[in-house]
């Protein structure tokens, strides 16, 4: 089962510069484990204390997983996962 994962610039140090990688898993959680197995270190950039980081967005087929079941969001063959760091900041 192949899922296409689009990797943002800032995380391409973990994917040898690749913009797209293929991974497997029947949920976002499983997918992240598979990514970690092939691109060590990436998991820590996506999760904090086992939960998605506040300022990292993960989308499955254009839907933010915050609105579709979080890490348990199911995946199937041909799905596209996009990872994007939030664009955020401010004087606070």
């Amino acid at each position: 089962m192949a899922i296409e994962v689009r990797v943002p610039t800032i995380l391409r140090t973990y994917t040898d510069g690749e913009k797209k990688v293929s991974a497997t898993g029947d949920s976002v959680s499983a997918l992240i484990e598979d990514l970690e197995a092939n691109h060590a270190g990436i998991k820590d950039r996506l999760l904090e204390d086992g939960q998605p980081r506040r300022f990292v967005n993960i989308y499955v087929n254009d839907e933010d997983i915050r609105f579709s079941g979080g890490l348990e969001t199911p995946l199937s063959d041909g799905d596209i996962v996009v990872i994007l760091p939030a664009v955020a900041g401010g004087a606070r």
Partner: protein
Amino acid sequence: MLTIDQATYDAIIAHARRDHPDEACGVVAGAVGSDLPTRFVPMVNAAMSPTFYEFDSTDLLRLYQEMDDRDEEPVIVYHSHTATEAYPSRTDVNLAGEPGAHYVLVSTRDGAHEGGPLEFRSYRIVDGEVTEEEVRVVERYDQSTGASAPQSPNTLTTNDQEADV
């Protein structure tokens, strides 16, 4: 150094003034590898806050898909500070996720939102390290060479910018 055309420079300032006292934010996209900010894309500050900005997650995805389709990248990521100087805060540095971008900060404090002198500064933020860079405002980009013609000095002195910008 950031090279930016006058129209885009003015558009960023106008957006910052319009959204004051909330922070304004957006990007200026440009062709991948060109380092030329050509397509001004003001974004909604989903935080609607005077001290914080964040692109809405759906808008963010749409923006990146659009840039991808057009072979663009975010050449500038800009936002305003509305009560403090135009320098990256600790939050700005911690959350900076585009190592290739010019981070532009505008300050609308001290009446700058009403037309007073306004700070417009640019930085690189890579691995938590902030480096300020020169901002060069040009009338237009020379598309044939990627280089740009300097603007005549007397048009640089508007009340929008410091004379040494």
